[in-house]
């Protein structure tokens, strides 16, 4: 079956920054993304779990976008403005999709 190259960008960020990030992405023309809750983890800022957090402020979410390769730079520029100073991880990987017209 015919597949098409695309980029998958995963941004793990504090839950409180989620709306700011997705608003920025939408302004940059990235209108397709999925948001997943993060149950817990460990990193430079220590270990944490979602259970027992006093508020959403201390939790994390993952925003996942799949886009055409030529739109990657625009997305990263927009995302960087938001994530620059915050806890989080941005990764980019090559993926293949079946229906290119959707991205």
């Amino acid at each position, binding site marked *: 079956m015919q597949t098409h190259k695309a980029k998958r960008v995963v941004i793990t960020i504090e839950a*409180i*920054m989620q709306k700011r990030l997705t608003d920025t992405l939408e302004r940059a023309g990235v209108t397709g993304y999925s948001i997943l809750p993060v149950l817990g983890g460990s990193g430079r800022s220590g270990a*944490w779990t979602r*259970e*027992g*957090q*006093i508020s959403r*402020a*201390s939790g994390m979410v993952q925003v996942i976008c799949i886009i055409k390769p030529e739109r990657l730079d625009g997305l990263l520029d927009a995302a960087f403005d938001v994530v620059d100073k915050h806890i989080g991880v941005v990764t980019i990987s090559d993926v293949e999709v079946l229906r290119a017209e959707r991205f």
Partner: protein
Amino acid sequence: MADILDLAATNLLSPVILSFVLGLMAALGRSDLSVPEAAAKALSIYLLFAIGFKGGAAVAANGLDGTLIASLAAGLVLSAVLPFIAFGLLQVLTNLSRIDAAAVAGHYGSISIVTFVAATSVLEGRAISSEGYMVAVAAVMEAPAILSALWLVSRGGSDRRMDSELMREIMLNGSIVLLVGAFAIGAITGQDGLDKISSFIVAPFTGVLCLFLLDMGLVAGRGLRESRGVLNSGAVAFGVIMPVIGSIVGLGAGLLVGLSPGGIALMMVLSASASYIAVPAAMRVALPEANPSVYLTLSLGVTFPFNLTIGIPLYVAVSQAVTGG
């Protein structure tokens, strides 16, 4: 003095405090006891609704007087000024960076609604009446401290401004909307309204508060366990001294405004308490460089348990002694 000790002992052995201690011990002992996130949220919605409604109904029953406006104004000023005192004290007692100190200071100007709720239940237990609108004072004290904290940082050279989105999030955060909304419903429907739902919001109140504080104990205990070594002795001393200083400032404000002994005690509690929900969220957005484990551990792990166990009975006793009430 004997009165204070007596009140402190009664308070420590109340179901509410012992539930908190149970949660704290369970978390420190690494038990798997936990209150599900959604259940904890539901408990907090119940408490905010009940406390707001009862405050509103009390205002409807006793009528409004001039001290309402003065109390609200006093709350605003206290919330804006206390961070400066906290910031000064932090610079003496700790070696926190300017940004960390400002972030912590912001927490101590704002309030902990759970501490306030626990204090109202202590007052009710001792049949001391207080002004119903202190709930509204609590609501106005949430936000000004955040502006003061950001100002403290920007004075240090790095420019910080509050964006309008953050301002909206703080002013319209769920707790404030629910508290003020329930207060309004209570004020509109008055005693009739309260009678209709009192079997739901009055009788089970203390029991729900116990469960909520069990969860708070678990959260505070986990926080303390995970952040060992984050706080030095100077910071811990700050977490205990600052609420006492705050309560004295609150006492002055309460006397100046002319509140009842119960109202003064609540004003002291509000000034003594430190935020651990609204302000940390705002600080993560506005001051991401500040270390969250410092301000969360201080306000939730040190000051909250202090206020709950020793602070509240102390403030109630002092307000009684000063006013002769």
